[in-house]
């Protein structure tokens, strides 16, 4: 056996294993596409993704919607609060992280400990008190209860993540900016933010995905059907008592994840940067 054939076999084996494992991993997604064209009984009785008797009912019935509102209306609703939420999250988290990482102030250690302790607080625990609070302020049935906590840096995870990144940025840069005459905000804007960009993109992406998939938040705060986001819309036809068409739910889910996929791929490069940087310096 020459060295060349051995190399070829080696490469073949490696690719074979990688492709086989890759197919296994991606198969559920492919199956979902196929299943959106299947009837209920076929979905539960076969693992193949090619439908025997393809039906477009799922797509047709999904686009009938409720009271004249279709999937697109509910997708629009989702982004009505997801985009503001992402923007305010980034702004508030950067400012808060900057404060904790670069300034000494009274009670800093204590506030930081409080901040971190909220990281471990499950959302369920907060539901009741927050609901009562927002009810008294009169924000129910609007997107404010979902967006406002983020404006006040309520997403501890992002603040924590940014602080860790900031620790890796040398202070000398800021000192140089100070000598050049930058004030505190200018330093943040012209020096810190450009360096933090990869991690800011990660924050924005995570928040984008989490907020779009959030089900419980919008469900308890929003009452009017016309304001429901797509995460609730997808479940609206799911009545376990009398049964429902799975192909419809799958078809609508498939369309609903397209914007998230587009955003993810568009920001992929910076996103991977951000995660990798966190791994090294965090």
């Amino acid at each position, binding site marked *: 056996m020459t060295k060349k054939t051995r190399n070829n076999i080696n490469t073949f084996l490696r690719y074979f294993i990688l492709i086989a494992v890759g197919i296994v991993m991606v198969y559920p997604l492919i199956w979902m596409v196929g299943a959106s064209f299947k009837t209920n009984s076929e979905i539960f009785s076969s693992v193949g993704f090619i439908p025997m008797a393809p039906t477009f009912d799922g797509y047709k019935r999904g686009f009938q919607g409720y009271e004249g509102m279709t999937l697109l209306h509910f997708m629009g609703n989702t982004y009505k609060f997801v985009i503001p939420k992402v923007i305010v999250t980034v702004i508030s988290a950067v400012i808060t992280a900057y404060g904790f990482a670069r300034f000494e102030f009274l009670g800093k250690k204590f506030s930081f400990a409080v901040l971190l302790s909220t990281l471990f607080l499950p959302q369920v*625990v907060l539901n009741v008190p927050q609901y*009562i609070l927002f009810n008294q302020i009169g924000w129910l049935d609007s997107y404010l209860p979902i967006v406002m906590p983020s404006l006040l840096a309520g997403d501890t995870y992002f603040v924590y993540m940014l602080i860790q990144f900031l620790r890796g940025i040398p202070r000398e840069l800021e000192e140089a900016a100070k000598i050049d005459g930058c004030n505190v905000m200018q330093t943040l804007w012209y020096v810190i933010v450009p360096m933090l960009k990869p991690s800011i993109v990660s924050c924005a992406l995570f928040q984008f995905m989490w907020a779009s998939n959030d089900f419980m938040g919008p469900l308890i705060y929003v009452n009017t059907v016309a304001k429901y986001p797509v995460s609730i819309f997808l*479940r609206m036809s*799911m009545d376990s008592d009398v049964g429902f068409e799975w192909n419809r739910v799958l078809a609508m889910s498939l369309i609903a994840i397209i914007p998230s996929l587009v955003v993810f791929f568009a920001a992929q490069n910076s996103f991977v940067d951000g995660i990798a940087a966190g791994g090294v310096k965090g």
Partner: protein
Amino acid sequence: MRKTTWKKVTALVMAGAVSASLFGCMPTADNQKTEATTTAAAGAEAETVESTESSEPAAAAGLEINTTDPITLRMNWWGGDSRHQATLDGIKAFEAKYPNIKVEAEYESFTGHEEKVALALKSGSAADVLQLNMDWVFNYSPDGSMFVDLNTVSDIIDLSAYDQSDIDYYTTNGVLQALPASNTGRVFFWNTTRLADVGVEIPTTLDELYAVGEAFAAYEDGTYYPMILNELDRMTLMVYYLQCVYGKPWVENYELQYSLEEFQEGLEWLSLLEEKHVVPTLEVLAGDGSELVDTNQRWIDGHYAGMYIWDSNLNKFKSAAPGFEFAVGDYIKMGEYHGGMTKASMVFSIPKTSEHPAEAAALIQFLFGEEEGAQLLGDSRGIPANKNGLAALDLTGSLIAEANTKVMEWSVFKFDPVFERSALKNPDGTYFMGLQLLSYGQDDAAGVAEYMVGDIKKQLDLAK
């Protein structure tokens, strides 16, 4: 040195604070007990009030439906597509009848619905007309203080169209808290194509049932079974069996009416069903890889030929297995008495915080008690419990209607609000644990009976 100790102290304090705040939110046994005793005390007090006032329901308060000023009502329900559409149509007709009233519809699926309704009720922002699960009424309002007494709007809602037993059931401390949309119970549902293949008839007595089991054991490779019963189905069927034999309600006044020995007898009977090849063991069921019957491959291809299941769900299981014929069987005689229980599949209430109780009552009456509304709703909420609503419907040929008629003719007992508590009926609850111990042979009937009766009594005590 000092600094580090301080750090440690702060860390400890913070950790303590977090865990304490978590603990505060958990329903500890102590909390529940005090809650239970206070409600029990309240109940006792109310009972004396009731006895002095006799059981005469409150008279109509003479509220009038406002037909001139613009009013906005909120109505909240859960369901699937057909129910959403039917209810929206009904609301449209209601708005045409009362042009000054606008109804905002709030609807979703069942997932998360209870959390949403519970939060809204507790903080006073609930919709004017609420669709609730039967037991939520008693969970949220054990003393009748949460909901409008529907007796006070009896000149708007025609209460005579409801069965007196329903009205009594939802009356707490003299307050009629809710009205059922429909009543439901479990029936025996058979895959007649498979029964014919095996060469047996639908069984109507216990001996026939055992004989069918033997016939299935001999059929093909012996992997076919006459019935599929998961843990909750088994529990319900066991109660059916015991009620057939002893003729007692399962629970009365929050007291379990069956003794440990009787309970054990029921469990032994369940084991007998497995022995006679009537039902597969839970191990076999687990091997099917599907928690739900309608997504179970072996239900879809007819390996299991029967169920003991809610009449309102039949169509789901029928359409899950295309190519087979199905029929609702007569109740199997297992003793001298009629076993089985019924419950409201859902009820409607008006919370006390509603600013327009009269108009909300008018909406309930229109949707369930008047011909136009009832026809628009059809059987989207089951077979109407309201007699006038039922009379307005033509249900010939409806499988559910046929099943529901059988249920209502046969059943004498009602579900108690505790039977389906999550601590009992959920997959990590008592019924599942106990019946799994039994079916897997990890404990004998006596041990399982002791465990299950203890847990059931504990839940009953908490609800008192």
